């Protein structure tokens, strides 16, 4: 069978081989490795078999620790088993990796190497995770490119079976795992040729089996452990040559020759760089370019990093080498140097003692760090390192790619240095996440890669927000294999799919002179030039850029494509890029359309064809003979009144220039200021809500539901209005608690709104003269932007409502409280953030938040700007994220500190009673802090205490001063999603619930792993389709609330804001007031449900009405009062589960793929929902237990 050329990414390349060569696959989602597991699962669901003709069994576990355990078990019982992971996930596998290696068990773990969280989490790539496994005994094999990923995945599988040493096959997260590349796909025959069945049988022979029982996993003692540990040495010694032999066999088979160490460059080079991973490709390309330019340099690519063959390494180096720079894509603070550097030095030192030492002399070796967290590694940097090696005393322990102005480790390099190949097409495409740009580009790569002789490469950059996010696609095409593993910075084609980008980003700096610029603008051919910002016009003229314009949105609307401009812009790209003859390109686009939509009917195909034709008809080259008529952009990212840090650091990051920030600009310990989203005015929506004050009933439901805290009410004295802007609205405040002169304003932060329109959906008021209008309605943002900016700024100046005047137990009252969580980058219409915001309103000024990794930690803590905010007094939630799995324990730690410090503060205060005075001491120690006024009073007392303590120059007073704030009740919140609470963190959560300590747990239950792209969790409902449950989950959702109730002393509430906002507010207040552990399980609609997010809150209602999501509050304090602790807050089911479910595509899609199964699962889910409700109803009606004994 001949081999096919395919355009796939690194993850798919690895999963392709893994699925063909294994019987069991145990996985757990983690970025950037998740797609490997998803693809393996999908292939198995489709019935694809491995080379032995059986479909691999894929199981999702509750954590990577669980996956590793399952892998270990499956291996021990003889199955060929694999897993995929990265970063913290790999760390969780380490204990099992020691065992698997210690027992000489063949397996391959495929790892898309990712940064380990330290001062911050990063989803991007480096080798810190892989390096943490060095001592496990796994062999470490590095792939540098997508082709190598496929090749080495197979080589690793063959080598592990022969050597019995388990392999960790790794490649760079994102750069390789997500890079789409044209590669040669290995065939089943190739795989069979490389994998020895005999060795597979040998593996099975060693399995645990009652027919020939053995015992493995003994406990050994000082007498024999050491000797036993040394028995494996021959296996490790043999592995390098086994791998090389397999590589040679592979070369015979495919023509691609690999070695344990591959040298590239001049055979007489004196300067050599040693590295592994994707950076080696950029270095490879640069070395070839430099040598062609007369340099004499080389690089050594490390393939098999463990077991490290010192002999092979020195033999691979040119004997002339005098200076070596070893690059590590990791950092080991406090070490002599990073691991590869140390290994190279040790290897040279060991080998120089050998008579066979091949080098002329011992070279000088320096080590350096590069590319942490996917930091770019470019030809300029490679040249910079070679230049450094040319120096007499090159800098050791250097960094490259950053400016280290603190310890001055960084090397200088020329960022403008390039190794451009004029035959390579380099295109950049700026799009919005929602416009389909990336999908269209992936399609273009497939067209060009698979249907022409060109090599193709695609890499896609996304920003840090989930709503209104910008995507940048980097596409290269050329006749030669592409080794440029870095972003395009000099494009010969640049497409801007959104006109607004031109106002904030300097796109054309990337276009080479004579390049092509394609713009989607809302303007006509005649008008567009004058609409361009002046700097854009200037660059077009200076660089003689060919400029094309299309109003793609107009074409999309006219051809029935809605707002999806992807096909239109793709057509324009093919029409003017010249990468393919125009007619051929258009034919291929249409073929692709037929392939994608053919099954969906002629109508959709025709519509897309029409869009293609209309795109061509509406695309025009713009004459650039005009002058500089455009408006000068101010270039100001944040306003002048922003804090210095925001102006100097955050603003630079917002502008996309974070790369330019030096080390000195960074906080040393990962501590960043809060309340920064307000400085980033994103203006991402075309429409904003507009308040109709005349019909508003001031219920504040829109305020509660707004996921982004952009709708704010205030009640204030009308005299303030004297200075109000002209269009500032107000109306007399409703309610007898407000005075005659007090007015109400509902203000929208127009520039922060995401346009989700949930506010309109939940508004209960309809205009009596026009039922299509509500008391808040969406209107175009642009005409209102300026006025609303002024209104918003004026609104902020109005004092917040006095908290003591507010009835916080009502929705209306609670929403008058200032939110201390605002303008997050969550998806437009997010179902989680309204709950988070509510907690911040009620308790934010005394709140510490432990946030499990997931959506909430990303929209809560992803730089450049973060949403947790502060009030006018400077108080606000203090927030941290530890890990995914430990969040409950992390939050418990907060409680332990607060309790200890409060106890100690009370002790110290008692001991200082004389100095402080009896009255104040007693008042502080006996204060009632059960409500806002009580806390306010206590704060006043502490101010007095502080004043006294400051005057007392005693150690005790100083001690008390530092912890006295704990005498005000602090609110500890532990937040996270269902992936954390139901799965990976459940053990810890359970322990914290059992601890009896006063913590508040908020489970934002989206019923899938939302952040990693919708994988099933134990919270996923029966019948729903999710990744790893592609045929619909066939088991019931775990009843987390019931488990918590079983302790008897845990406050538990199940809420769904859209079904009962009043019950939600009540539950939050009760949970926080409860002096022990409390847990709120909050129904959170999610983009991963496949719903119209504007209608998200309506789904809460249906979930409750079907009985699937009963609302309740379980308050153990009621037992003490002789009452049943369980109060059921929702009525008996009145609709079938399917009436809720089929409004969501996560359920509906199963009716399209497996209609019979869909019906069966939903009927079963309905039965369970009714049973579930019935059970709670019975519980709620039970006579309370006699607590008096």
């Amino acid at each position, binding site marked *: 069978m001949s081999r096919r050329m395919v355009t796939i990414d690194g993850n798919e390349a690895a999963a392709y081989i893994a699925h063909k060569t294994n019987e069991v696959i145990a996985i757990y989602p983690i*970025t*950037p490795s998740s*797609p490997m597991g*998803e693809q393996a*699962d*999908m292939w198995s*669901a*489709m019935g694809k078999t491995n080379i032995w003709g059986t479909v691999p069994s894929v199981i999702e576990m509750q954590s990577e620790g669980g996956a590793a355990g399952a892998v270990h078990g499956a291996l021990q019982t003889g199955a060929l088993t694999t897993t995929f992971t990265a970063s913290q996930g790999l760390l969780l596998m380490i204990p099992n990796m020691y065992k698997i290696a210690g027992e000489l068990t063949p397996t391959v773990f495929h790892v898309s190497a990712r940064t380990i969280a330290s001062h911050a989490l990063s*989803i991007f790539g480096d080798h810190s995770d892989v390096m943490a496994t060095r001592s496990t005994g796994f062999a470490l094999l590095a792939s540098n490119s997508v082709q190598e990923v496929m090749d080495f995945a197979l080589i690793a599988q063959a080598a592990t079976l022969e050597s019995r040493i388990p392999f960790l096959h790794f490649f760079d997260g*994102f750069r390789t795992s*997500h890079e789409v590349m044209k590669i040669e796909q290995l065939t089943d025959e190739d795989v069979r040729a490389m994998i020895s069945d005999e060795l597979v049988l040998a593996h099975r022979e060693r399995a645990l089996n009652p027919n020939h029982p053995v015992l493995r996993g003994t406990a050994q003692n000082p007498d024999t452990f050491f000797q036993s540990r040394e028995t494996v040495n021959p296996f490790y010694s043999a592995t390098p040559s086994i791998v090389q032999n397999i590589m040679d066999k592979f070369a015979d088979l495919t023509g691609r020759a690999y070695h344990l160490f591959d040298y590239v460059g001049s055979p007489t080079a004196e300067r050599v760089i040693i590295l592994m991973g994707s950076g080696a490709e950029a270095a490879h390309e640069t070395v070839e370019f430099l040598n062609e330019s007369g340099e004499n340099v080389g690089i050594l690519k490390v393939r098999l990093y463990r077991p490290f063959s010192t002999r092979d390494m020195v033999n691979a180096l040119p004997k002339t080498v005098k200076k070596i720079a070893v690059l590590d894509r990791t950092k080991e603070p406090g070490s002599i140097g990073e691991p590869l550097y140390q290994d190279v030095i040790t290897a040279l030192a060991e080998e120089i003692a050998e008579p066979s030492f091949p080098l002329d002399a011992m070279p000088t070796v320096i080590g350096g760090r590069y590319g942490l967290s996917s930091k770019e590694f470019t030809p300029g940097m490679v040249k910079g390192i070679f230049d450094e090696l040319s120096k007499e005393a090159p800098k050791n322990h250097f960094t490259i790619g950053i400016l280290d102005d603190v310890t001055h480790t960084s090397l200088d390099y020329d960022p403008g240095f390039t190794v451009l190949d004029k035959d390579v097409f380099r295109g950049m495409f700026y799009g919005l*996440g*929602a416009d*389909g*740009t*990336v*999908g269209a580009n992936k399609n273009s790569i497939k067209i060009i890669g698979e249907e022409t002789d060109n090599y193709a490469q695609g890499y*896609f950059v*996304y920003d840090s*927000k*989930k709503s209104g*996010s910008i*995507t940048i696609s980097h596409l290269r095409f050329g006749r030669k294999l592409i080794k440029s593993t870095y972003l395009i910075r000099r494009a010969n084609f640049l497409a801007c799919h959104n006109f607004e980008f031109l106002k904030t980003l300097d796109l054309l700096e990337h276009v080479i002179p004579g390049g092509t610029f394609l713009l989607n603008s809302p303007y006509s051919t005649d008008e567009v030039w004058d609409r361009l910002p002046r700097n854009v016009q200037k660059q077009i003229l200076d660089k003689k850029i060919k400029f094309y314009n299309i109003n793609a949105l107009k074409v999309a609307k006219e051809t029935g494509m809605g707002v999806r401009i992807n096909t239109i812009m793709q057509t324009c790209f093919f029409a003017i890029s010249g990468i393919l003859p125009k007619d051929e390109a258009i034919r291929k686009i249409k073929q692709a359309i037929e392939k994608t939509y053919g*099954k*969906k*009917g*002629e*109508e*959709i*195909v*025709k519509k897309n064809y029409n869009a293609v034709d209309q795109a061509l008809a509406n695309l025009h080259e713009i004459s650039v003979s005009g002058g500089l008529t455009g408006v000068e952009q101010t270039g100001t990212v944040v306003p002048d009144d922003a804090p210095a840090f925001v102006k100097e650091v955050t603003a630079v990051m917002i502008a996309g220039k974070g790369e330019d920030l030096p080390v000195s600009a960074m906080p040393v310990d990962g501590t960043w200021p809060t309340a920064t989203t307000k400085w980033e005015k994103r203006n991402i929506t075309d429409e904003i809500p507009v308040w109709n004050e005349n019909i508003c009933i001031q219920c504040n439901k829109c305020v509660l539901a707004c996921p982004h805290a952009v709708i704010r009410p205030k009640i204030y004295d009308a005299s303030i209005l004297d200075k109000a802007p002209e269009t500032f609205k107000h109306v007399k405040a409703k309610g007898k608690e407000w005075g005659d002169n007090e007015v109400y304003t509902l203000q929208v932060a127009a520039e922060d709104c995401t346009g989700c329109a949930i506010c309109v959906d939940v508004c209960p008021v*309809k205009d009596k003269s026009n*039922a299509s209008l509500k008391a808040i309605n969406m209107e175009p943002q642009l005409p209102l932007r300026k006025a609303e900016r002024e209104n918003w700024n004026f609104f902020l100046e109005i004092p917040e409502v006095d908290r003591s005047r507010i009835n916080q137990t009502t929705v209306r009252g609670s929403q008058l409280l200032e939110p201390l969580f605002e303008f997050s980058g969550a*998806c437009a219409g997010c179902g989680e953030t309204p709950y988070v915001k509510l907690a911040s309103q009620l308790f934010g000024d005394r709140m510490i938040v432990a946030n499990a990794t997931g959506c909430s930690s*990303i929209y809560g803590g992803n730089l450049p700007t973060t949403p947790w905010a502060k009030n006018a007094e400077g108080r606000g939630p203090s927030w941290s994220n530890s890990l995914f799995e430990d969040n409950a324990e992390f939050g418990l730690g907060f409680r332990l500190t607060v309790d200890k410090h409060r106890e100690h503060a009370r002790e110290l205060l008692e001991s200082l009673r004389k100095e402080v005075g009896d009255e104040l001491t007693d008042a502080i120690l006996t204060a009632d802090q059960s409500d806002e006024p009580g806390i306010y009073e206590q704060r006043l007392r502490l101010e007095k205490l502080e004043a006294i303590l400051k005057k007392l120059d005693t150690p005790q007073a100083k001690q008390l001063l530092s912890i006295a704030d704990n005498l005000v009740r602090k609110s500890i919140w532990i937040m996270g999603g269902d992936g954390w609470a139901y799965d990976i963190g459940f053990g810890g959560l359970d322990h914290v619930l059992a601890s009896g300590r006063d913590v508040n747990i908020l489970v934002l239950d989206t019923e899938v792993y*939302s*952040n*990693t*792209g*919708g994988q099933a969790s134990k919270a996923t409902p029966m019948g729903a*389709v*999710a*990744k790893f449950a*592609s045929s619909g989950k066939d088991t019931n959702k775990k009843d987390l609330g019931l488990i918590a109730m079983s302790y008897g002393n845990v406050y538990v509430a199940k809420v769904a804001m859209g079904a009962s906002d009043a019950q939600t507010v009540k539950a939050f207040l009760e949970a926080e007031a409860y002096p022990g552990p409390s847990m709120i399980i909050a129904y959170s609609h999610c*983009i*991963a449900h*496949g*719903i*119209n997010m504007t209608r998200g809150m309506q789904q809460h209602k249906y979930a409750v009405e079907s009985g699937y999501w009963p609302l309740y509050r379980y308050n153990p304090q009621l037992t003490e009062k002789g009452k049943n602790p369980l109060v059921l807050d929702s009525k008996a089911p009145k609709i079938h589960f399917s009436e809720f479910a089929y409004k969501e*595509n*996560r359920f*509906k*899609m199963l009716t*399209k*793929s497996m*209609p019979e199964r869909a019906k069966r699962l939903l009927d079963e889910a309905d039965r369970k929902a009714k049973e579930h409700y019935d059970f709670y109803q019975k519980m709620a009606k039970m006579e309370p237990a006699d607590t008096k004994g």
Partner: protein
Amino acid sequence: MRLSTKYMGFDLQNPLVPSASPLTRDLDTVKRLEDAGAPAIVMYSLFEEEISHDDEELEHYLSHGSYSFAEALSYFPEHQEYIQGPEMYLEQVRVLKEAVDIPVIGSLNGISIGGWIENARLIEEAGADALELNVYYLPTDINQTGTEVKQLFIDILKTVKEKVSIPVAMKIGHYFSALPSFAKRLKNAGADALVMFNRFYQPDINLEELEVEPMLQLSTSDEICLPLRWIAVLRDQLDISLAATSGVHTARDVLKLTMAGADVTMMTSALLKYGPDHLRKLQQDIINWMDEHEYESLNQMRGSMSMQNVPDPGAFMRASYIKILNEFRCE
């Protein structure tokens, strides 16, 4: 044989044809209908919206939010094989054809000339014995003329007829001026039968929610008056199969419509209300009535009270306007 009739060339053992409804989604129900004596069935409708918009909606929401954020490039399993709207329908045609011996009439419901019409051919290929074309169209544009609306019906019918060789019945509403002439045009355009009439769901206003809600009410026997009149009018003027639908619940309804000239009397509400066995009872009731009144067969009475055959044709016309107002009442 006393109840037998002919409809679009099919010899049916009785005129009690279940009309297009969700009943035909379930194979067991269809079998029960056949057992109870249904002589043919009209399947539930394949809607134009289902063919295009439904799939587009699924496509939209399953891909919504994808390729926007590095950690979540998609939210659903990819490469799923979906049974698209038409495929599921076509499969049901195949299943029903396999399971029952009576003619299966497919039903296609739409209002425009477009790709969806291609499904007429696919329904034929799947084995349907005939096709009912339901142009459920309510003109709301003040600039659209009656002529244009009628032309739309004609064009859709012609397009469908070009695609298939099985008989095609045209199901229409009653909001037409000069209905008889329009009926003639439909026949000339190729219609093998007229199904009269669509029951348009009427909107209602929810006073509390200020929302328009469809009123989903089952028909009552009162509603047969409308098809009765027009079948009586058309029967002797047009050589075409005529199906009465709307309000057929009782044997008396069937008898009246047959006397007016209906070849078949279609029903859904009665079957939803009483279940498939209702067909058995109807047949028996009809026979009982015929025995009592000494009729040999339905054919004998078919059209016996058509406009041409009644002593006073004016009863179907304006001449008896006042009389109708004051006296005439359906039972």
